[in-house]
């Protein structure tokens, strides 16, 4: 059984679109850049060091495939990892260790096999599918101190009611709240002060 881990840069209003800029046409693309510092860098480096395979949407895969094969020095091991790619159209790639998936059932099948955890980054549409079907075991969020008012959101329509456990948290000097959550059952309710 492999865990599915979604790591996401989000704004205070939940936008996850184009934090790094460049890759996508979005008015505020690159919004995470001013908050990037040594602390964020170190956290991301630690996350990338954990043994993992990647689970990606087709668009994110294409962006990755055009960049990472020549930049393994920045993300050691990325070329050797298995890249599971959800796509209805793509069936192969020159990037080594790429495996193409067609359906939710394919993802569930991979999840049940032995192996490294599956890290999801970017991949907005795929993330929606995973959240909707309660397939996300961990959320690693970097909550940035800004609102954008527009853009694709991490928790969009189709988000399910779910309780989580905060496992790690850190506030960086630039005001990014880094918070890791694991899935933990149903939402409970009560009455405050009762």
């Amino acid at each position, binding site marked *: 059984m492999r865990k599915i881990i979604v790591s996401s840069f989000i704004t205070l209003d939940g936008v996850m679109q184009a934090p790094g800029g460049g890759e996508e046409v979005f008015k505020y693309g690159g919004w995470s850049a001013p908050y990037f510092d040594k602390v964020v860098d170190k956290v991301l480096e630690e996350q990338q060091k954990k043994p993992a395979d990647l689970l990606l949407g087709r668009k994110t895969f294409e962006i990755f495939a055009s960049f990472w094969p020549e930049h393994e020095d920045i993300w050691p091991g990325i070329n050797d990892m298995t890249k599971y790619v959800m796509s209805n159209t793509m069936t192969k790639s020159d990037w080594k260790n790429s495996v193409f998936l067609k359906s939710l059932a394919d993802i569930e099948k991979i999840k049940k096999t032995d192996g490294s955890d599956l890290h999801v980054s970017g991949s907005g549409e795929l993330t929606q599918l995973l959240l909707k079907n309660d397939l996300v075991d961990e959320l690693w969020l970097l909550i940035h101190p800004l609102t954008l008012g527009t853009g694709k959101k991490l*928790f969009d329509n189709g988000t399910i009611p779910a309780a989580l456990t905060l496992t790690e948290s850190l506030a960086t000097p630039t005001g990014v709240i880094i918070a890791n959550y694991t899935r933990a059952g149903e939402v409970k309710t009560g009455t405050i002060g009762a």
Partner: protein
Amino acid sequence: MRKIIVLEHISLDGVIQAPGGPDEDTSDGFAYGGWAAPYDDEAIGTALRKMMNSPFDLLLGRKTFDIWAAYWPQHADGWPGANTATKYVASNTLTSSEWQPSVFLSGDVAEKVAELKQQPGPDLHIWGSGNLLQTLIKHDLVDVFWLMIYPITLGAGKRLFADGTIPAAFKVTESIVGSNGVIVVNYERAGAVPTGGL
């Protein structure tokens, strides 16, 4: 110059509807009222009391005012400040209340609140008041968001940052993590959104 400070219990997916109890606000069939209740925690409670015991007046939407007016006068020992604070209430229908001191703002609420901010007095605290908040956010009238971020998603319910949210940058001046996974963060308004790629 009085600051407007928004204090909210908020889920990871941004929902602020009915954190306190099942009957607080069931509009649109909201079924998770009382989602904040299971997360009682000493560190968060202490931070909350610090805010509740600081000098303030209240700025409230009409619905939140109605709920509070039915509760706090009989529960003064729980929070004396709620009764002694001046309640500024945004409403086009309500013009007076037995719960005093209260002042009613009608018409162009954004303009009235902007004027209110210029007057001398303590900071203005907002709780709940989902509709009023949208007007204040849209007109960039909020100086501070003091958020208690809960480790849950709800998938439905009124959101703090709805349509009409403006691009805005903030500075984190304080953050506290409770043993229950609630994170309290104080966000102060800090200029425009910086752009430019990595």
